[in-house]
């Protein structure tokens, strides 16, 4: 086996049918959707069709689907657009979030506080659960927004978004959810309980990179962060990525239609992978097992390896995985996600490894991977022995 690709949570390869949809859009819709001519109209029609299709699939109004350039932009627009909107009314925005969010939420919240806001963290236990009293106490402070992801990007833990939506709605507080890792991996639930703002990214679904959406229930919740030609109802100006939108819609359609079967398949493969690793590495720590988990992520910790080495060592053997979120590779601190779930002390002396599965994953891959990983771990432990004394 030449390559074992277990980094679908970072990027999943473009699906052939998505590629076809994009090629068709490229042929048909080469114009600028703002053009008044035939080509412009064709581009507009293709863009609108993608928007309508995504609205139908998510059971939301197409008018609530705003195309943006990926998950990071979507999360930033939701959080900072909301903070700006509230500030414009003369209120100092309070932003609630959890300690385990993706960096594009965490850093946007940090920027929101630097811009003259406040932030509070909703405590979660390792299973992802939150105490109703803690939640209600924070909501009682009248935050501008509460942002909670649906599926954690490092551990796969499913967070209680529906519970937060119910509690927040009673008080009229808007909720944002980063559902980048949830789409196509778990059922998104009843459309009525969908948060007011939801972020998606296309390339986690086998769609194109630099494409995403923010679902916005009520346009008035947000102030724009970019200014220009008024595209996307002024929330995301700039010439629209028509081809990307067409690919995105095709990817959403595929993953949602396949979800019941594919979710089960990934879960079986993930469990096989987990068992294989536990057998070969007896002191392996598995993160995220305390609560409900999305089927495509397995996050393990290898004690005795304090260095961010495993993904590189595995790459040498043709196995692609990551230490955590791809967006933080190279940083000096241990995963803020793991310390968010398990506390600061946990991450010390444990090398984290995120193995994530997707549509290309085969049972051969999950059978081979534990062999390769166990071999690399044994070698790395030998090499690092002088350091661990």
């Amino acid at each position: 086996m030449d390559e074992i690709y277990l980094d679908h949570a970072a990027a999943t390869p473009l699906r052939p049918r998505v590629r076809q949809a994009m090629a068709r859009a490229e042929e048909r819709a080469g114009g600028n959707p703002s053009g008044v001519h035939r080509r412009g109209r064709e581009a507009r029609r293709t863009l609108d069709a993608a928007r309508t299709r995504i609205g139908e699939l998510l059971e939301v109004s197409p008018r609530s689907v705003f195309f943006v350039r990926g998950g990071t932009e979507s999360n930033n627009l939701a959080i900072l657009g909301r903070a700006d909107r509230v500030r414009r009314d003369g209120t100092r925005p309070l932003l609630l979030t959890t300690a385990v969010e993706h960096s594009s939420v965490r850093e946007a919240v940090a920027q929101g506080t630097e811009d003259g806001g406040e932030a509070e963290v909703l405590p979660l236990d390792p299973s992802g659960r939150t105490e109703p009293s803690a939640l209600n106490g924070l909501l009682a402070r009248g935050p501008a927004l509460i942002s909670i992801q649906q599926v954690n990007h490092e551990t796969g833990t499913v967070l209680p978004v529906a519970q937060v939506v119910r509690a927040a709605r009673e008080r009229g507080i808007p909720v944002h959810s980063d559902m980048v890792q949830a789409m196509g991996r778990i059922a998104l639930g009843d459309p009525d309980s969908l948060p007011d703002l939801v972020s998606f990214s296309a390339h986690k679904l086998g769609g194109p990179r630099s494409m995403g959406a923010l679902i916005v229930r009520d346009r008035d919740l947000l102030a724009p962060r970019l200014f220009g030609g008024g595209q996307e109802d002024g929330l995301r100006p700039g010439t629209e990525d028509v081809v990307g939108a067409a690919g995105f819609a095709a990817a959403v359609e595929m993953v949602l239609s396949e979800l019941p079967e594919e979710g089960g398949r990934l879960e079986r493969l993930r469990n096989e992978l987990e068992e294989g690793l536990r057998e070969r590495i007896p002191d392996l720590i598995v993160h995220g097992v305390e609560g409900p988990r999305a089927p495509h992520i397995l996050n393990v910790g290898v004690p005795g390896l304090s260095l961010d080495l495993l993904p590189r060592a595995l790459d040498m053997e043709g196995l692609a995985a990551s230490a955590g979120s791809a967006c933080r590779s190279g940083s000096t601190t241990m995963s803020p996600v793991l310390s968010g779930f398990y506390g600061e002390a946990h991450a010390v002396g444990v090398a984290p490894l995120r193995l994530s599965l997707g549509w290309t994953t085969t049972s051969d891959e999950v059978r081979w991977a534990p062999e390769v990983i166990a071999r690399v771990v044994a070698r790395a432990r030998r090499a690092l022995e002088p350091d661990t004394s």
Partner: protein
Amino acid sequence: MSDKRILVAMSGGVDSSVTAALLKEEGHQVIGATMKTFCYQETPAHSRTCCGLDGIMDARNVAERLDIPHYVFDVEEEFTRDVIDDFVEEYGRGRTPNPCVRCNSRTKFGDLLRRGRALGCDGIATGHYVRSGPGPRGNASLFRGLDREKDQAYFLWGLAPELLPMLHFPLGGLTKDQVRERARALELVTADKPESQEICFVPTGDYRDLLKKRMKPRHPALEPGQIVDLHGTQVGEHDGYAGFTVGQRKGLGGGFSEPQYVIEIRPDRREVVVGPREALESTALAVNDLNWLHGSPNPGTGVQIQIRHRAAPAPAVVGTTEDGVLTLELARPERAVTPGQSCAVFDGDRLLGGGRILHALRPHPASP
């Protein structure tokens, strides 16, 4: 195709770039590795991730050109502990540290090498101008580089002896001009990069800026004190002994009848002792933190020592070692034997090991 997997420490400079290219040409499986040793930029705490280091970018660019994998290893914690903290502490003790030697023995051939082994590498290579090969009894040894202008064996006395068989130094037999030619022929972006001379973690070029940042407030090394002559008479004032190094002439103020040099630093009294050039001469020196690549040489052995980069080797005789302190008797007096600096010990071109200079032994020691 060789079955050897070799980790090349790539700094982003021309030497390590050509090192990787040469080993690849020899048919080895080459892996490029760049150490991220410290954060150059002061960035807001919440967005403190990887820095946009030019060196890392250049190394990656070269690796892509050579079609070899390239990884960045974050050794900031270890580098800070073993190199930067030591640098600051040594100046605090009135000594003059040698951070590049510490980085080689602890970080590059320690932390980076361990990571390389974890990746399954059986060798490590750097762009040092030194040669590795069999010694007189066939055992793996290190020798001075053929290009005497560039020779860097001095910086490697601290390597662990068990590493010797794993080391590759493909530039040891080349001149700098030849290396640059190779880089140009390979169209490497680093071909005409200027030499790095500064201490990498002192971007301002003035190490006192770093000391001010990292030493405790009101550390005696940064407080004013007296400049005294060899008889202990005050002849001036200084603004912190950390700004001085033995042998230095500049910064002592004027008004002396003959040129004055720093002869000694006495941290306990915050004194900088100055004297005429002759007072800098030593006939012997005491060295500690010893490291030997082939076992400690017997007392009475004739060796050559090098007490600063680019200094000519000085003939010396190995004396006794007591409590980890070795005495070396010099055949001819040497100037400015500087505490904290390295003393590399050679047998001809062959590196035997070395240590850190504890103090000079002088025929006429400065009076207390």
